[in-house]
């Protein structure tokens, strides 16, 4: 039967999306729906004096004009100013740096450039792209990646002759800088340093990378070069600030995006409530599956993003069952995880272009700049953690012409539910801040050691902070370096300091949950180290995708929890004992009368000692058990708030206790939104009688040893924090607490929500 004759079957993706949106069964799930209108391209002036071979190469690819951001970037870089380019996915960002770099190399073959990408896959990708441009321009560019995959015989060639060296910060840290004499051709002539995916260099990793840049600049100074830095970032609130922190120099912001786009529908979808008591909703994964099936079935090319590899596998196999090809034909649904080779990606890309691939399921490896072109629809299964990554994922859907659809499917996690209830945060608030703290003492001391290995440090040199000399004395005292008579500090130890630490460590690793129900063990998912004692202690009931699992064994050393499927009528609730000791108050701000707002350094220790078994519906306590997991300790930064005394005196201790739990919950969720951070990077603790203040206190701390500046920034945003918390609580339609605001009433008490609201009002 010819469906088009019936008029029921949509013919184009645009018609299919319109039909999808008009479907009545979708409406109950939609928490928000926005439409972004189509935008025509805008062009900037063509750069003067561009090497004619490059102009010809661009023309041959059909590029007759540069978009406004590309033109501005080229102009800024050629004027000798550092730049940070901030434009959405697939807007021709790489041309912004490839153009001026290739032009400079074409003029003077001695010119060198260093490209940094956070992953090897991205570096391999860029190599292909840069070579293609150079080949099209018939410029014999010597470029190669330099990382763990580079064969030894090619390495020495890259060191001596590579004009554009493509690598990652880890290689720069451990293999290039400590051997800089082998690279002196590069460092003598280094004119450009390209840092792509700048937004991924935040938190502890970013703090390390900023120090690697300090070391790089020292070595460049030694060899007499002074490179320009070209950064490219996804949309974040403070790209220029982040770039300036990372490269420690002024940068010019290039963010006037001139790339065209078609009409875009943005949906926030919230699956219906499955468990009233706990506020648990239906599975985001299964909802995603249903939506993707409908869209793909109607010929809408769709990409779905899942947060874990496991979820990618599950969703891929579900969709493959639905869209099973005839025997002997390749699957039309492709999975994409990190670590795929460029060829596999090219196959997906080609498949999407010619229609052989109808759907892709990906982890956030694709979010990170790997270009597979635009699709018709993008589905994010669960909030990716930041507004910036949400927009990056959503940006995968979008054609230059025609309508596209992007949907965020909320999970049961508090932050997802907050966004479902307050979707305007996604649409209207600025995305998060990318924060780094290059002066984190842990980090700084390690890099100062590595730096002293690379070149002696004069006592008057400033490395990051003014008190560098004090740090040098500390390192000397510990026997790492020697203060010689010429007033320089020399590396004076047998070790190779760059191998003593990794740029990506320091962040606590996750605990892997292994399901042993079937014949073969399989990984269900992960929980972070801070939450693990609460969620996967032995005998805990761990709920995953709505299915109960019993934790049979927790191997703390191996960071593994072994679970089996079960079906019981209770859930478990562990008591987490967090102690927090204030070590130093670093700053204090105006607070309402008799209230306190401070920030400083703290020591946080946490331990889980016992859990309760609580029956569904009746909430009877039907048993308990003890937990033996060693105490964890961390020195970090924190800020804390004390509500005015006359306000808290109105409530009894139990009421206040519950309310503080609710306050902590909503504060953590909203803080993570205000800062560019994963909620897991932020710890929170409410104490009814805090030893330090002697009063009810809400502490928020950086859940990373040494701190990365999260709460330092939050301290300047306390007014915003309280305002947003009030909106979250007062604007929530629930009666007395739900996961989207303060948490369910069984956790915060029946007056919990009301008291939180009063406390917030009094603190404003």
């Amino acid at each position, binding site marked *: 039967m010819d469906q088009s004759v019936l008029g029921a079957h949509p013919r184009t993706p645009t018609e299919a999306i319109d039909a999808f949106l008009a479907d009545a069964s979708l409406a109950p799930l939609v928490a928000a729906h926005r439409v972004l209108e189509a935008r025509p391209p805008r062009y900037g002036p063509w750069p003067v004096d561009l090497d004619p071979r490059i102009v010809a190469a661009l023309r041959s690819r059909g590029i007759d004009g540069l978009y406004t951001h590309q033109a501005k970037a080229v102009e800024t870089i050629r004027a000798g100013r550092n730049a940070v380019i901030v434009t959405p996915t697939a807007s021709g960002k790489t041309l912004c740096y490839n153009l001026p770099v290739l032009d400079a190399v074409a003029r003077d073959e001695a010119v060198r450039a260093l490209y940094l990408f956070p992953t090897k896959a991205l570096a391999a990708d860029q190599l292909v792209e840069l070579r293609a441009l150079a080949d099209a321009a018939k410029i014999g560019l010597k470029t190669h990646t330099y990382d763990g995959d580079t064969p030894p015989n090619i390495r020495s060639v890259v060191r001596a002759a590579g004009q554009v060296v493509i690598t990652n910060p880890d290689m720069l840290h451990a293999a290039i800088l*400590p*051997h*800089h*004499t*082998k690279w*002196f051709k590069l460092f003598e002539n280094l004119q450009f340093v390209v840092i792509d995916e700048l937004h991924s260099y935040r938190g502890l990793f970013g703090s390390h990378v900023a120090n690697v840049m300090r070391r790089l600049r020292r070595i460049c100074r*030694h060899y007499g070069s002074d490179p320009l830095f070209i950064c490219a970032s996804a949309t974040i609130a403070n790209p220029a600030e982040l770039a300036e922190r990372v490269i420690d120099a002024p940068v010019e912001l290039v963010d006037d995006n001139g790339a065209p786009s078609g009409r875009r529908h943005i949906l926030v979808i919230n699956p219906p409530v499955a468990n009233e008591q706990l506020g648990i909703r239906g599975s985001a994964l299964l909802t995603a599956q249903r939506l993707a099936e409908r869209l793909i079935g109607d010929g809408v090319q769709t990409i779905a993003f899942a947060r874990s590899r496991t979820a990618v596998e599950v969703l891929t196999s579900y969709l493959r069952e639905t869209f099973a090809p005839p025997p002997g034909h390749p699957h039309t649904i492709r999975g994409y995880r990190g670590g795929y080779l460029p060829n596999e990606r090219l196959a997906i890309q080609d498949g999407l272009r010619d229609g052989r691939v109808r759907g892709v399921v990906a982890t956030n490896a694709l979010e990170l700049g790997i270009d597979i072109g635009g699709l018709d629809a993008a589905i994010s299964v669960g909030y990716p953690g930041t507004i910036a990554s949400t927009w990056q994922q959503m940006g995968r859907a979008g054609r230059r012409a025609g309508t596209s659809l992007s949907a965020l499917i909320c999970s049961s996690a508090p932050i997802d539910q907050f966004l479902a209830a307050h979707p305007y945060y996604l649409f209207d608030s600025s995305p998060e801040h990318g924060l780094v703290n290059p002066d984190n*003492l*842990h980090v700084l*001391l390690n890099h100062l050691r590595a730096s*002293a*290995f*690379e*070149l*002696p440090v004069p006592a008057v040199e400033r490395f990051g902070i003014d*008190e560098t000399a*004090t*740090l040098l004395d*500390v390192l*000397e*005292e510990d*026997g790492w370096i*020697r*203060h*010689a*008579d*010429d007033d*320089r500090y*020399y*590396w*004076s*130890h*047998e*070790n*190779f*300091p*760059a191998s003593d630490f990794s740029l990506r460590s320091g962040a606590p690793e996750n605990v892997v949950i292994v399901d042993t129900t079937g014949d073969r063990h399989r990984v269900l998912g992960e929980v972070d180290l801070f939450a693990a004692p609460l969620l996967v202690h032995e005998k805990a009931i761990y709920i995953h995708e709505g299915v109960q699992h019993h934790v049979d064994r927790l191997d703390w050393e191996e960071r593994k929890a072994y679970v089996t499927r079960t079906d019981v009528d209770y859930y478990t609730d562990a008591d987490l004992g967090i102690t927090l000791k*204030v*070590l*130093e*108050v*670093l700053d204090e701000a105006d607070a309402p009368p008799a209230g306190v707002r401070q920030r400083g*350094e703290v*020591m946080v220790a946490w331990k889980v000692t016992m859990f309760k078994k609580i029956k569904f519906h009746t909430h009877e306590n039907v048993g308990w058990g003890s937990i033996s997991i060693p105490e964890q300790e961390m*020195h970090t930064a924190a800020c804390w708030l004390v509500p005015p005394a006359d306000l808290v005196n109105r409530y009894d201790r139990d009421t206040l206790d519950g309310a503080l739990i609710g306050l902590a919950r909503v504060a953590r969720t909203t803080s993570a939104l205000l800062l560019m951070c994963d909620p897991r990077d932020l710890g929170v603790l409410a104490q009814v009688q805090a030893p330090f203040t002697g009063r009810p206190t809400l502490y928020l701390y950086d859940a990373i040893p*040494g701190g990365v500046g999260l709460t330092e920034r939050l301290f300047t945003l306390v007014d915003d924090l309280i305002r947003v918390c009030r909106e979250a609580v007062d604007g929530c339609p629930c009666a007395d607490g739900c996961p989207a605001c303060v948490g369910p009433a069984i956790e915060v008490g029946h007056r919990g929500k009301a008291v939180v609201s009063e406390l917030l009002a009094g603190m404003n």
Partner: protein
Amino acid sequence: MIAPRTLADRIAALRGERPRPLPPARPVADDRSAGLARWLGAELRVADVGRVVLVERSVPLPPGTAERLSGLPDACYVDTETTGLSTGVGTVAFLVAIGRVRDDRIVVRQLVLPDYPDEGALLRLVATELADGARLVSYNGRAFDLPILVARLTVHGLFAALAAIPERHDDLLPIARRLFRRPLGGARLADIERGVLGIERVADLPGAEVPGRWFGYLRGGSPDLLAGVLDHNLQDVASLAILEAKIVHLRAGGWRDAEVIDARGMAAELLRDGAAADSLDLLALALDRSLQPDEELGVRRLATRLLVAAGDLERAEGIWRDATRRASVDAASAWIEVARIRERHRHDLAGALEAAAAASRVLDLAFALGRGGSVAEIGRARVAVEGRLRRLRSWVAARERRADRRTAAA
């Protein structure tokens, strides 16, 4: 309000420690280098870029050493002592020794770095000394000592000095490995000294302690800490010359009387020198001795290669026929080698078939007697033997058919 803490307090807290008392003040910059020179009985070279302590010592060489070396271009025997084992730029050579053979002695100049700021002076002096020779001789210097010197010269921007270092660099480690590693079970210089050169070190400083000695001296320790390092280093340099002379001697026919030598390695060296006949002699001699099975196999293979190259196919076959007398997998392998020589080089298919059939019979026998290899080994050998046998049979049959056709046509 608590009192603001100092950075030092924060550092201490970060490490979970109490602030430590200040370290004792560093001794004033008295001229420790002069003291060091006095203690070591050395000369102190003072340049405007720094000071270098120069110790010159000479050691008698065993009789004949200088004579054996006299045919080679004038060498600088080089060994460094460093602050670590990584070749990253932060590793510094604090002692560079350069030995020159003069008459029957080796004269070693040990350049000692009094402190980091003097490194430029030391490196300049090192480069000048090295430029005076026609080549460098070292033990693992290609991978270690020289890269470190190059890195340090580059850091100091001493490119002219770097360019003056002779290009020829004879690293003795690779050849010492080929000649001695298998028989000695190792090829560290100390292994060679003990097993080949007959040098026994007394009270030698373990290499791992070397960096700590210099750090200890820098931090105010006695110059005596370095005395042991200098002795250790002096012996290293002297051994280099003695080892090179030993290698010259072995190559020049000394291999005939050598007690410790890897036959394959030495034969390869002789071959490299163009002495194929000597190489064969050596292998034949080696086969007369009792060798380890895997070593014997290697020696036979190399000897076969040499004989085939020399066109002496009869002797090449003989190398293996000696080994076919036992009922074992090895004997079957030897028959296969014979078959290969007959097939490939003598173009004698019938003979090859005969040898392959013999291999098959040896395997049957070995299996029946339950010796000469595990069942799996025999099984694997069986697969190889039967394959070759089948191939040879079909070729021989094909040739016979062709011959028959030719006869019929005629």
